[in-house]
């Protein structure tokens, strides 16, 4: 890809990379009253690809990934995940599709009345009913071992540090072996060292679980480490798209501040 700014139509016409597209977003629009958050947004995620979405606070990045999992309804455009239009899915199919997507919240959103074990078991018991109690326990322990938190299995979320909460949030998203991971500012609110640890852990987990992902982040270290491709969202459109190096070299007053 060349190091040039792309128009919305040009972005939608980006040649497909190897692999099948698992998320296809075309001309997506979402408004809250008079505030047009997404304004004909386009993005295609190929299988195995990690895309970082950059943008100023409040520009609609979180709205985008909430539309992808059906937490928010979009006003116009098309949003297909695994080839199915999200807005047309009945509730049961939407729930089945959500089980194939892991979502890591900005503030982890751990269930604070449950232990770490129960947090991981919550979705597992409801989606993998055929699994025995021992198999569920084994899967929970294996996932917690992967994020390095097996010792905290019986701890309440209130007793965990910020970094540990992020790890548990990641483990909870991974326990169902999702095909897509959506990260909403995964390193926000962490000190630089812990933020780097979490970014490295995300990379390890992406390789181990073979996931595709959309990462909403302001953390350039995280973006540089994880992104196969980046898109910069300005005024509800993907203003620029390319690899980290390509975007860094762009001489544009709107994109340059992200790399300073």
């Amino acid at each position, binding site marked *: 890809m060349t190091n040039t700014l792309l128009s919305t139509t040009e972005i939608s016409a980006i040649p497909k990379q190897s692999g099948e597209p698992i998320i296809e977003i075309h001309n997506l629009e979402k408004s809250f009253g008079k505030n047009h958050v997404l304004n004909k947004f386009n993005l295609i995620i190929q299988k195995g690809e990690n895309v970082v979405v950059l943008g100023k606070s409040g520009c609609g990045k979180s709205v985008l990934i*909430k539309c992808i*999992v059906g*937490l928010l309804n979009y006003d116009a455009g098309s949003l297909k995940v695994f080839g199915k239009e999200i807005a047309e899915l009945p509730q049961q199919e*939407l*729930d*089945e*599709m*959500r*089980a194939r*997507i892991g*979502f890591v*919240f*900005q*503030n982890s*959103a*751990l*269930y*604070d*009345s449950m232990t770490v074990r129960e947090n991981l078991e*919550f*979705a597992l018991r*409801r*989606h993998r009913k055929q699994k025995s109690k021992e198999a569920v326990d084994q899967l929970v322990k294996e996932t917690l071992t992967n994020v390095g938190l097996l010792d905290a299995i019986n701890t309440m979320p209130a007793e965990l540090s910020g970094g540990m909460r992020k790890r548990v949030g990641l483990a*909870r998203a991974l326990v*169902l072996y999702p095909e897509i991971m959506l990260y909403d500012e995964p390193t926000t609110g962490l000190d630089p060292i812990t933020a780097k640890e979490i970014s490295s852990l995300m990379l390890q987990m992406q390789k181990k679980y073979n996931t595709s992902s959309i990462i909403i982040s302001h953390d350039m270290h995280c973006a540089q480490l994880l992104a196969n491709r980046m898109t910069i969202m300005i005024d509800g459109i993907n203003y620029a798209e390319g690899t980290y190096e390509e975007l860094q070299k762009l001489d544009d007053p709107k994109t340059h501040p992200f790399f300073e």
Partner: protein
Amino acid sequence: MNKRNDIPGRDKIADTDRLKIPSGVMNFFTEAGDTSRFAGRFFRQLFFPPYEIKETIRQCYEIGYRSLPLVGLTAFIIGLVITLQSRPTLVEFGAEAWLPAMVGISLIREICPVVIALICAGKIGSSIGAELGSMKVTEQIDAMEVSGTNPFKYIVVSRIVSTTLMVPILIIIGDAISLYGSYLAVKIKGEVSFSLFFHQVFENVVFSDVIPAFIKSFFFGFAIGLIGCYKGYNSKKGTEGVGRSANSAVVISSLLVFIIDLIAVQITEFLGYL
């Protein structure tokens, strides 16, 4: 040129005399409609699996067992105070022997169900409103939804079922404790045995005193759970929203207790049980 505009002062009439529904009235009907839809969603999901039995039992423990000390103490004091205050008047008319029956009927029929329901509206309603509001604000409900589970079933159905079952039980226990308080009050002032007191109470308390009170207590429990869950589940963002949810859950469910009680009295009278 449009003739409508030729009428002098036509534009002023249109601006000032147009029928405007006050925002307070609009909000009231919007809230009432949303609450009814919320209740409809509860009934639709109540009868279909998966059933969150473990969570419902846990909520029964939290809502029922943990409210018992407060309900018990309140009921005891009510029984004691009402008996002590009623006694002088009855003594004046030489009707002291009617004291157990009179206090027993008024406690079982009206005072205990309403006062305990109000206590539950304060304790349980605020707790559910604040807990669900906090879960909403910290995106825990969204997290359940994106994991492909049904948060409404896990959070709302279990709590409304628990309050509907536990409030009547708390009221029955409260009735018993308040009668014991009443017995102690009688015992302080005069000589009466435990068996004689309760014999006098139950000789005069009939089926039609107990059953309407018992039935309305289920509605009290349902209203407390429904309003607490509705307010918490629809909490607006921020800590202020959580406080507001808890507060309005208490205010509205307390008001509903009185409204349900008023309707229950009318129905009881209509059926000839008064």
